[in-house]
């Protein structure tokens, strides 16, 4: 039963990843691509971590998974900002 719930989370997470990749591939300009990426992959990874934590069931593993997610969230938000900033600066030149 808990496995079923976990799998549901994992699969939804993967779907978000797929949406993010399609966005990165198909959207017309850099800034909308950045937007698609940060939304989709962070949410995707969050769902995936939640699903894996449910399937595993261990408390320590759940904490670690949560930590990984928070880290990626913070790092990728900053990285996306830095990339956008750099693109804007180059456009100004």
């Amino acid at each position, binding site marked *: 039963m808990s496995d079923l719930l976990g799998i549901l989370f994992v699969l939804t*997470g993967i779907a978000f990843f797929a949406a993010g990749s399609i966005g990165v591939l198909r959207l017309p300009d850099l800034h909308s*691509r950045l937007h698609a990426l940060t939304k989709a992959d962070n949410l995707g990874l969050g769902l995936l971590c939640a699903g*894996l934590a449910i399937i595993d069931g261990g408390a320590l593993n759940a904490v670690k998974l949560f930590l*990984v997610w928070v880290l990626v969230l913070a790092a*990728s938000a900053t990285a996306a900002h*830095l990339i956008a900033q750099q693109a804007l600066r*180059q456009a100004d030149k």
Partner: protein
Amino acid sequence: MTTTTQILLASTALLLLTLGMGLARAMIGPSLQDRMLSVQLLGTGGVAVLLLLSPLLAIPALVDVALVLALLAAVAAAALTRREVDDV
């Protein structure tokens, strides 16, 4: 081999396929930032693949590896964007 494991396995393969799609953007470009963007996608995706492989291969330490990869992807992003900033 339980059904859960099989589904996780299929999810990992699907995720890799997805990452390959994102990497197509890196090949197309056109700007350097577009390529960095797909590297970032690959960083997050790589973390996800490691997290999925951990139960599949029964190696709990792969979660630690995912943690390290997440940290270093941030270092790489900082190094990548820093270069041009200094040129101004």
